[in-house]
């Protein structure tokens, strides 16, 4: 089982550490924030550039957005208000992961327009978490939010994998995007890296 929650001893006595083990879990978390903010279209872009040794993850939504004061607050886990349901541990954890890998996060937001979260990493940094099972993340997002549209792009040195659920829904012509054969197809497409080589273990095959 691939999970960041490490357990010690018997199940009843286990201790938890709240840590996202890979970047695809951070993406799942931040995008769930966006859906909670009422977004109907969410763009997820993962760009790797080996020449610049950078990895940049951009998550942009058209949800309710935040004012300037809230944007500064979401980075502080101890200064959150629960009135918006937009904030919590998710952003501070992502920022921690970025900082540990020579990177940072930037949040820009406008009320009633949307929010953009950009996390950048030093790609070769020894503490840069692996991307992990991004296919499982996208399938979980589509399954849990069938009415939200997702634009996904992963590029490694300019070679890209693209997905746009609006195009898929148009082709499916009324058949649900959550139908297992459709999700399988999406899983297969995204499990392969843009070079075509499968580097991402699935949740089922990863060691515990």
């Amino acid at each position, binding site marked *: *089982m*691939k*999970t*960041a*929650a490490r357990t010690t001893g018997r*199940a009843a006595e286990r201790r*938890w550490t*709240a*840590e*996202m083990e890979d970047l695809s*879990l951070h993406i*799942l*978390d931040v995008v*769930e924030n966006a859906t*909670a903010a009422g977004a109907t279209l969410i763009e997820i872009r993962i760009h790797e550039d080996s020449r610049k040794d950078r990895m940049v993850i951009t998550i942009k939504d058209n949800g309710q957005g935040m004012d300037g004061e809230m944007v500064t607050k979401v980075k502080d886990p101890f200064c959150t208000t629960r009135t918006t*349901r937009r904030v*919590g*541990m*998710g952003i501070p*954890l992502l920022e921690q992961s970025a900082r540990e890998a020579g990177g940072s996060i930037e949040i820009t937001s406008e009320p009633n327009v949307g929010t953009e979260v950009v996390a950048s990493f030093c790609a070769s940094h020894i503490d840069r978490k692996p991307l992990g*099972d991004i296919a*499982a*993340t996208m*399938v*979980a997002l589509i*399954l*849990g*939010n*069938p009415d939200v549209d997702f634009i996904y792009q992963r590029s490694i040195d300019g*070679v*890209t*994998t*693209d*997905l746009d659920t609006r*195009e*898929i829904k148009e*082709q*499916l*012509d*009324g*058949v*649900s995007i*959550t*139908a*297992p*054969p*459709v*999700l*399988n*197809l*999406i899983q297969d*497409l995204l499990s*392969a890296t*843009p070079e*075509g080589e499968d580097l991402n273990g*699935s*949740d*089922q095959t990863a060691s515990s």
Partner: protein
Amino acid sequence: MAKLRIEDLKRIKEGVKGTVNLREGNFRVKITVHMGTCGIAAGARPVMSTLLKEIESRHVTDVILTSSGCAGLCSHEPMLTIEVQGQAPIKYIRLDPEKTSKIFEEHVMQGNPVAEYALSLGSETTH
């Protein structure tokens, strides 16, 4: 550039067309995986993947799978809630793929809630 092939989608559309659209309320069981920050960090995604595989491999057509946010019981994550039509919802706690498969087999397929993984069953007794 890698993209989904339109002919694959057309093939799937023909294969799935005519089956019941579960999203319109026509389902027997609804399974909700709690996908807040706490749930995701604790392993909610493998639970979701396991449920999808169970639904697919058993060709189940009357079960709907969805996600929700934090339920306020973060130390019990990963959690899922099973709602069988006409019955009280049951929350399962501290899950992993193995426990999830057992719950799917016994509760979703056979109708018997798995007491050992449930947060609670029924209301408190007075004796």
